[in-house]
């Protein structure tokens, strides 16, 4: 059953410079599934996503996507295979307009349902500001643009790195309310979140990282608050 | 009590070797023929020029492809002082230093507005300006250049052999002083700051080092030394012209090759590189421009695959240093 998964991360050790950020981490995502990865700051959540996306490569272990190994694939290759990352801090291209940012997201020309029109349908506020330079948008709008940009590549797996960071709760709720629309065509999602409640509400499966190790994992509805606290804080 | 020690076994050997070398070189007029003396003098001046370039680029991070500006300036100052003001050549060489430094001040203020590779091209522009200005000075030969008058040459020494000995010893002395000054600088507090800049400029800045000021001082001091050496070079050549004085090939390309192949950012590099360069030159000299072509290719290869140069390979692997520059904290053992 494991090997029918869309994404299979098997026992990876990952480093952030000289510092080991992940110890023997395993994770799997099935098609159409939403998986949340939670954990305190420095627990290794971002490093996990970066390892999957190909920005960094694990020193040990392997990563399989659709059965094929992508452990050492460069980031542009990973995107072309169908994994898109919404990076932490949005990181829109400042020299490009909103629309150009979206278009760049689509430059890989992967076939699929996501087009400029559809992204504007999902986030109408972006359509109003399409020709503005990206830095002119508010934090929440930039986050929407970053998600839209990733969707434009028609991924099979979308990685969202801390999309609630620095945003007002009402904005976070609005963005999360759109996520179900995103997942409809069998798109899978990994969301890394510090906002635990939001993560538990959105995901069907949860992994909790603590100091680089998987401290807890299971279906979202089955995990108790106590178990999560214990895993999160390592008490 | 704990103390900071600088010497290591390799540096003690290094200092001893340098002392021995100095003695042998000082006696060269007695064991070497005329050709050998000329070659040695040339090697010494290149070692000095390369060491200065290394200080600028390898330590202060100021990559200049325009040091020929000061080589030529020094040369022209020698000729101007000797011909127009009838100054004896040897004091003229010494005067060229401070004047070169003075000229370097406004130059630095201008080109320090450029960063990185644009700074490098800026230094080239300055050298071009100097070259063009020199061509306009008709009393010094204008575009075709001028020879050192016989009267000046004779003022140095009564016969040719004495003159050649004098120039050789001058080259040795000047090179020794320049290299010695560089070692002393690197041993000092400022040297520590420079090494920090070499290793990581941003970190150095955030540790309170006034990077701009140090770079400025190093640029001016390098101009000081380069001008004096330039004066000496053209005293030996007995003739100067704008194209030879400000030649990019001679005073920059060769110097860069020497420093890069020997090991940039390490004090031993330029000396090792000088030996490499002259060995290659003696063996390949008759190949003309093919030789320069190969030099360029070797420099590229070194930069890509052995960026620390020949010395760097040994120094990193074995922890060698020829001069006592490093600082070791010797912790006292508990009784």
């Amino acid at each position, binding site marked *: 059953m494991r090997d029918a998964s869309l994404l299979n991360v098997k026992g990876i050790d990952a480093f952030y410079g000289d510092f080991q950020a992940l110890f023997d981490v395993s994770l799997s995502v099935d098609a159409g599934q939403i998986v949340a990865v939670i954990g305190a700051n420095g627990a290794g959540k971002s490093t996990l996503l970066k390892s999957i*996306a190909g*920005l960094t490569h694990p020193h040990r272990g392997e990563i399989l996507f659709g059965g094929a190994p992508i452990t050492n694939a*460069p*980031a*542009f290759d990973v*995107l*072309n295979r169908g994994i898109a990352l919404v*990076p932490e801090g949005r990181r829109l*291209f*400042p*020299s*490009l307009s909103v629309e*150009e940012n979206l*278009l*760049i997201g689509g*430059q*890989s020309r992967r076939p699929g349902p996501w087009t400029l029109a559809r992204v504007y349908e999902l986030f109408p506020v972006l359509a109003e500001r399409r020709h503005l*330079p990206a*830095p002119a948008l508010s934090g929440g709008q930039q986050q929407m643009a970053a998600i839209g*940009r990733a969707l434009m*590549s028609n991924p099979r797996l979308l990685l969202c790195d801390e999309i609630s960071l620095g945003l007002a709760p009402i904005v976070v709720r609005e963005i999360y309310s759109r996520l179900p629309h995103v997942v409809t065509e069998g798109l899978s999602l990994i969301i890394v979140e510090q906002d635990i409640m939001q993560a538990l509400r959105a995901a069907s499966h949860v992994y909790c990282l603590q100091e680089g190790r998987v401290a807890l994992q299971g279906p979202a509805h089955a995990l108790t608050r106590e178990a999560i606290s214990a895993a999160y804080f390592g008490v | 009590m704990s103390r900071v020690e600088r010497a290591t076994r390799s540096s003690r050997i290094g200092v001893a070797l340098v002392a021995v070398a100095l003695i042998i070189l000082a006696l060269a007029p007695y064991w070497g023929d005329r050709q050998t003396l000329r070659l040695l003098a040339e090697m010494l001046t290149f070692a000095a020029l390369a060491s200065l370039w290394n200080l600028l680029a390898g330590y202060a*991070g100021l*990559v200049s*492809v325009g040091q020929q500006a000061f080589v030529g300036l020094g040369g022209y100052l020698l000729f101007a002082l000797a011909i127009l003001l009838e100054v004896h050549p040897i004091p003229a060489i010494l005067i060229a230093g401070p004047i070169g430094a003075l000229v370097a001040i406004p130059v630095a203020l*201008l*080109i320090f*507005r*450029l960063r*990185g*590779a*644009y700074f*490098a*091209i*800026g230094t*080239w*522009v300055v050298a*071009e*300006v100097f070259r*063009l200005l020199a*061509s*306009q000075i008709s009393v010094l030969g204008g*575009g075709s250049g001028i020879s050192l008058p016989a009267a000046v040459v004779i003022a140095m020494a009564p016969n040719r052999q004495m003159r050649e000995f004098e120039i050789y010893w001058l080259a040795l002395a000047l090179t020794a002083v320049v290299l010695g000054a560089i070692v002393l600088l690197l041993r000092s507090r400022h040297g520590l700051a420079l090494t920090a800049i070499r290793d990581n400029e941003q970190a150095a800045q955030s540790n309170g080092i006034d990077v701009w000021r140090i770079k400025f001082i190093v640029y001016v001091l390098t101009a000081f030394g380069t001008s004096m050496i330039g004066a000496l070079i053209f005293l030996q050549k007995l003739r100067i012209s704008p194209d030879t004085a400000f030649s*990019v090939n001679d005073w920059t*390309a060769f110097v*860069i090759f020497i420093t*890069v192949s020997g090991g*940039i950012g390490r004090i031993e590099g330029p000396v090792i590189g000088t030996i490499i360069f002259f060995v290659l030159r003696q063996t390949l000299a008759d190949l*003309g*421009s*093919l030789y*320069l*072509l190969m*030099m*360029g*290719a070797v*420099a*590229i290869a070194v*930069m*890509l695959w052995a*960026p620390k140069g020949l010395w760097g390979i040994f120094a990193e692997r074995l922890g060698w240093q020829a001069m006592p520059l490093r600082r070791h904290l010797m912790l006292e053992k508990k009784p």
Partner: protein
Amino acid sequence: MTAMQWFNVVLQGVLIGGLYAMFASGLSLIFGVMRLVNIAHGDLIVLAAYISLMVTQALGVDPLTSLLLVVPIMALIGYALQRGLLNRTLGEDLLPPLLVTFGLSIIIQNGLLELFTADSRRLQAGAIEIQTIQLTQSVWVGALPLIQFVVAVAVIAGLQALFYKTALGRAFRATSDDQSVAQLMGLDTRHVFAMAMALSLAIVAIAGVFLAIRTNFDPAIGPARLIFGFEAVIIGGLGSMWGTLAGGIILGISQAIGAQIDPGWQLLAGHIVFLAILAVRPQGLFPKVSG
């Protein structure tokens, strides 16, 4: 000298400024995309001139027609050069790209010297070289300088269009903004950089051929072209292509006026204006304000 004569001097300066702007745009294009300053840029311009020489001799065509071959050849050289050599030098340290392109400059100069000797050459464009065009009642210009200026403006306009209206231009700007996020978008930055260099050398090809028709050339004139391009970039201001055109024109006019005062002052006048602008307005006259 009369006002009309001065007008002509300035006009000549404007026209050659277009050529300088072409030198500059190739240089600033790759600096913009990958922060690389190609010290061999001027020597590559000269290389293009020699390639055109070989093409015109081998095929018996005129220099402007040879562009049909020279441009793709130079573009290919650019792609290979970047992909094979220069991509390895990119990174935090500024020394490797500088020293490698400097070494490249020496190699190209001496390679050309070995192949073609130091003899001065010129490309013959035929009748068009002496044709003149009447602009107004009392103003005539040479056809060739005018064509070259128009081509220069077209090149710069083309670059603007490419950068701001095409997918490749978007890729250039995105990669320049943030290399790793560009990778996340599926862009192979090694390829993007190589395309930028190919484009730069395509422009170099055009500039080289026009230069070679206009003046005598030999293997050693590369560095001076680099300096003119560089001065045009700094005078005009970093980041702005039309600023680069302005910079080239100002340089051209300075040189023309200098030459008028005294032939030996042509180059000096340009350098002095450059240094003056560096002194009083180091960001250039029309710098792009970063958004």
